């Protein structure tokens, strides 16, 4: 069916009434008037809180708007911009950090809910100026192009190794599927993780 006929159909009487009603309800041209009525905002003093976060072993106190995600707290309040914001919706993994050793999407974690957890970011991986073996493996295997997804990939890979999966290509691809790479560096990412896995079985266990 050519596309114009679909448009003609859409403008047929029933559909037109439907579109008009919809447009009216939406407050045409005014996006702010869309959807459900907005609940009244709370008083300003109830919209913020004083919180304490443990980031890379350091206790940080900050006052935040309660809507602040862990990702925004890291990047905008603490200057830790290694953790990246891709989609802000849980779909890309660029914001992956560890909370008590478990990988999470920092963009879907409210900062106020992360108090009392040990948060590790990409900035906290190197110890005494020495790269974490996963960082070293990513560099050796050239496991990135633009590098935007890389901190998230590395944090996810560190978690992958500590979760104890068999480091086969298939398992790496499945368990790293929460981290997208727009540059398509996947083959080298798989190699880097295999290299790091190999090192951790041959040498000292990987530290967090």
């Amino acid at each position, binding site marked *: 069916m050519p596309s114009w006929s679909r448009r003609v159909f859409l403008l047929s009487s029933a559909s037109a009434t439907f579109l008009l009603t919809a447009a009216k309800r939406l407050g045409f041209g005014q996006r702010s008037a869309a959807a459900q009525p907005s609940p009244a905002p709370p008083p300003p003093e109830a919209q913020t809180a004083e919180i304490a976060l443990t980031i890379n072993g350091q206790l940080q106190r900050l006052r935040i708007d309660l809507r602040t995600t862990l990702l925004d707290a890291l990047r905008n309040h603490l200057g830790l911009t290694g953790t990246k914001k891709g989609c802000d*919706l849980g779909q890309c993994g660029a914001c992956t950090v560890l909370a008590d050793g478990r990988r999470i999407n920092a963009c879907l974690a409210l900062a106020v809910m992360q108090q009392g957890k040990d948060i590790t970011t990409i900035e906290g991986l190197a110890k005494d100026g020495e790269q974490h073996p996963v960082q070293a493996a990513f560099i050796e295997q050239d496991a990135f192009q633009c590098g935007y997804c890389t901190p998230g990939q590395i944090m996810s890979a560190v978690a992958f190794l500590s979760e104890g999966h068999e480091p086969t290509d298939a398992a790496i691809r499945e368990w790293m599927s929460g981290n997208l790479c727009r540059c398509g560096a996947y083959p080298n990412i798989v190699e880097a993780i295999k290299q790091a896995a190999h090192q951790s079985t041959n040498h000292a266990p990987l530290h967090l």
Partner: protein
Amino acid sequence: MLPFTYSRPRNIGEAATAGAQPGTEFIAGGTDLLPLLKEGVRRANRLVDINDLPLGGIRHEAAGVRLGALTRMSDAADDERLRRDYPAVVEALLAGASPQLRNLATVGGNLLQHTRCLYFHDAAMPCNKRQPGSGCPAWDGQNRGNAILGGSRACIATHASDLAVALVALEARVVLGARHGEREVPLADFHRLPGDTPQIETVLEPGEVITAIFVPAAPYSRRSTYVKLRDRASFEWALTSAAAALDLAGDTIRQARVAVGGVATKPWRLPKVEEALAGARADRSIFHAAAELAAQGAEPRQFNAFKVELMKRAIVRALADAGSLA
């Protein structure tokens, strides 16, 4: 996202009271709620964090297994006994979302996740679920991802959970807590068909919380499996999925349980398919004939008609996989 207050009650009574107020949302893992608040699809001026409620933990009993509502998807998937005794549940968990999301996401929140319908997620578009009475653009629009079963003229949004499909096949029950105690609802009756009120998605009363999910131990639970078909190999929603469970005596099927996902407006059990399988031989031609019945009453739209065939094949595959389990 509108400004909100935040509270963290320690008991269900307090949570229920707070949760019943208009403009309030519970937050567990936040992986469903936060994107919707950011996109302006849902609006809240109060968030009630339920993570301090005593709703964690997995308890295996003779009669079945009780998953606390706050159990993280990853922790449930890691549970050895759950994997052994209810494999379809663990397979569905591992087929959902991503490893880092599963560390945040709870099993209770998973059942309450919102549809992935494109129009529901676009606050600038009409959507009867988001704004009652505004219309359903999916009906004649981009409906490749939408439902072929259980829809109405008002709404053809699918329920997107994988976990719920495995659970509904295994006849799970949802335990609900309120100020005045608990009640139990079969998962099959927990979600509502859209009808004329697609905005009302479940039988939850205002302020009521899911406290646990109970999966009964049945003769077919161990021989259960979950098949998920999607546009890419991992980290993608189901186009179609199927859960199957078989109780076999030799190669005769004593009883079967079958449910499908990605194709219906709620987790979709298939009693007619199950009846056709009961007493029959466990072989492919029987599976094919039974799967045909799944499509009875299917109402595909312009771009999702492929799901009719895909659904039947997913069912056959799931039955064959279940049949070949040791």
